[in-house]
């Protein structure tokens, strides 16, 4: 298998994730898009791990998964807080974004 087929797939997923982050207004959906980006990174890590024939990539992928879990936990907590405070999780309505 070519290394590039993994890398290009990951790149595509990454860009789709970026698109999601940039366009989604719903906080939960933005977080999901972030997950997409993280997964793209994971694919890269594992693919390179296989390419280099060692387990470093795998190990880091595991770490990324763990960190992602933490990130989602905190992120969702923030979204919940936001929802509780303003009854909306529309990112475009957050105070800090008003110039």
């Amino acid at each position, binding site marked *: 298998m070519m290394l590039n087929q993994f890398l290009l797939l990951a790149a595509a997923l990454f860009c789709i994730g970026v698109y999601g982050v940039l366009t989604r207004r719903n906080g939960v959906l933005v977080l999901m898009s972030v997950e997409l980006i993280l997964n793209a990174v994971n694919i890269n890590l594992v693919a390179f791990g296989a390419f280099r024939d060692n387990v470093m990539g795998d190990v880091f992928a595991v770490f990324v998964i763990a960190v992602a879990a933490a990130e989602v936990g905190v992120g969702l907590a923030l979204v919940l807080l936001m929802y509780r405070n303003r009854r909306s999780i529309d990112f475009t309505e957050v*105070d*800090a*974004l*008003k*110039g």
Partner: protein
Amino acid sequence: MEDFREWGLTLAVFLPLVGAAIMMAFPKTDEQIHKVIALGTSLAVAAIGIVLLIDFDYDAADTMQWAVTHDWIDVIKTQYAVGIDGMSLPLVLLTMLITPLCIIYSWNHFPEPHNPKAFLILILVLHTGMIGTFVARDLVLFFVFFEVVLLPMFFMIAVWGGEERKYASLKFFLFTLFGSALMLVSFLALFFLSGGETFSITGLADAVVSEGVSRNAQLWIFGGMLLGFGIKVPMFPFHTWLPDAHTQAPTVGSVILAAVLLKLGTYGFVRIAIPILPEAAVAWAPWIGLLAVIGIIYGALGCLAQTDMKRLIAFSSVAHMGFVMLGIATLTDFGINAAIFGMVAHGLITGMLFFVAGSVKERYHTLEISRLGGLLIQAPRMGWILGFISMASLGLPGLAGFWGEFPAILAAYSPANGVDTTLFRVYMVIAALGTVLAAGYLLWLLQRTAFGTPSEEFADDPHIVDANREEWIAWAPMLVLILVLGIYPNLIFGVTDPAVEEGISECLSYEIEGDEASANFDVGECERNGIDAALAASGLALGDE
């Protein structure tokens, strides 16, 4: 003492973090404890600074002293390498001075929403980042410290700032982050192109020559650094974050921002960009110079249009940093010495201006220039101080500001080899024009805030009192330094001169008769094949030095 030299710098860098960690252990309500710990920590760091000041070998200011090199991340060949030479010493000491003064200043008046614990912890973290940036000798380490500074400042503005704080902090954060992203890319490109052997600054400078990094690549890498550092400086047209950040930041935040943070950018130029990539620096110099003089004039014009005192001071920073950048753009010993002096002077003077603006705000609850007036009647000492630092800021000889401005203008008359002399002479005249505008806006500010009689709304306000004890303690050292450095500038020039000379490539400073010959000198050729080859290539007779 030998031992202390080994870990003194490391201690200075991380002591604030230790202090911050200790403060975490105490509850938020014990405000006194937090203040004492924070002040104690910063004073301890300042004490290290004093030891450094005494122990520093001034005859060897061109070498790294108290240097430590330790393996850090082998995979990317990066090391924990810190050290101090004449170039960084003034800036490190400035940082060590400003931070305790800021803590003293805020002793009894923390801005809303109060919370001294968090505020002081942020200041201490900032402290670590700032000192670290100035002592780092490794690009990755530099970058890490450079970024460490970002977050505390973001929070300081976002939490303790004014009305528009969220917008301002976000703008500050994203602008700087954007800049540092480009900077990081540049660092990485440099690393890989120079053979991927080292991130050490001196090592990279050698590797760029020995690995023959192409001129094009150098230009792009320098461009990335220019953006990264330039945003931090800030250079026109990347300055728009600065007025917002300054206007919204709490007083102490503004002071630290003006006094130290802006210098991280200019320091990057003189420490990293120019020594590593002299050839690219020559190519970029006219553009940096152009942006610098635009910044000088533009900042001054911006000042004239302001109605808010703090915003005016912020714009004046753009103009003053323009002088610093002009000095750097000349790529000469003279200019860079002036730039470093300018950094310190601007740190002290603009820091003081922000202090006074903060105190005015605290008393009048507004900084609207048209509503102020008669400060000299209501708070005569403060009015005097404002007058004094305005004079210093407009570059009055005998006060610190002059020695940043005048030598920079002077250096522009005769920039380094390979740089167009005529162009820089035009810059010189424009920059000199900027000094008139500087006098204009500063005196105008002084006239409308300090002179005249107080407006009716404040005439009988009992809250408007003269400078109090904390303010005096915090201001006195800065005022004294402004005066002392102005009278005896050699205190800084004497230290920086050898280090700057060391940092500047011989190809830039080699003396060539005639403006045109100097401008046509091929610095790249000189870097690669030596001075003689370059002289021959430019059709010049071999130097008979």
